């Protein structure tokens, strides 16, 4: 096959796979966080019925603007206990890379429509 044609074909077919391996913050949030934090991020996820400590409402801008990006990152990566919160928030370090957790943090800022302190 002509070299350039081959390069073009490889680029064409690998592009979706590359995009696929880079889920957005919202896609990651939908996959891992909405089960407890809810599809709107308000803390009323499908698992909230029997949970003893209610999941954080990520749309609460007063509460969320008091949390730094580093603290949010730490809570996601190492779990609630790492930031003196509930054990019910597990660590997600095996599910998401640091770069992915960063994107989730950015998405949290969209949900709360707020800035870090």
């Amino acid at each position, binding site marked *: 096959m002509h070299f350039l044609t081959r390069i073009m074909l490889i680029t064409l077919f690998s592009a979706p*796979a590359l995009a*696929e*391996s880079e*889920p957005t913050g919202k*896609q*990651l949030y*939908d*996959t*891992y966080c*909405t*089960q*407890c934090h*809810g*599809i*709107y991020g308000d803390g*009323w*996820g*499908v*698992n*909230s*019925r*029997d*949970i*003893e400590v209610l999941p954080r409402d990520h749309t609460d801008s007063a509460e969320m603007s008091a949390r730094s990006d580093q603290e949010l990152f730490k809570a996601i990566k190492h*779990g609630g206990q790492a930031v003196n919160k*509930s*054990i*019910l*928030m*597990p*660590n*997600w*370090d*095996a*599910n998401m890379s640091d770069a992915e957790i960063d994107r989730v943090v950015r998405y949290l800022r969209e949900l709360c429509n707020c800035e870090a302190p």
Partner: protein
Amino acid sequence: MIQRKLFHLPTVTMLVGILTGFTSPAFAEEKAKQFVETNCSGCHALNEPQSFTTARIRERKAPDLHYAGNKFQKDWLIQWLQSPTRLRPGGTFFGQNVVAAEDRDIVPKDKLPEHPVYSKSEAQVAASYLMSLTPHDDLVSDVDYVPKPSSGAMGHMNFTKFKGCVGCHELEKGYGGISGPEVYTAGARLKPEFLYSFIRNPQAWEPKTFMSNLHLEDSEVQKLADFITTLSKE
């Protein structure tokens, strides 16, 4: 004359050949494979996916079966295929079925598809092929887990308060989270070594699963697996 025709040697050889061919283990295996591919592959992955992505987790219709032989107890599988019950109250991926209701997000029952029911012989055929799918012997080969009876009260406390598993898994029908599979039947459903291995490292089996890896010590994994196994005997 009739006698001679009946025992015509080439004919007899051919008949014996056909009959043994149809009942040979290789033929039965091929039929079982065909049965599973025809009936199950529309929703379940029977081969290891080429890539694991979060999109695949969000979009797949049913749990993967490509390592079914490493995962399930055969007797349970045969029974379940004849009278399937829902194991994941929120569906395979809760996000496909969830809707925002007045108080909180819910999964309406009518959004969840029913699993087909099979006859006993069909279930046996399907199970025989599914149990042959064991690509992850490597993951269980180092597991030396023998279930031991556990203290119900301590196990309950551990499962709910200390490890937080109840957030996503139902501990009894109607109590617990609904995004993960129910655990009160897991001891009967899963091979003990799979249960242990999956708790210890879920991502080794399902790289993008929405279960977290709590990085537990072996003794802690043992306690959880013992508790779950005890639950299904109650």
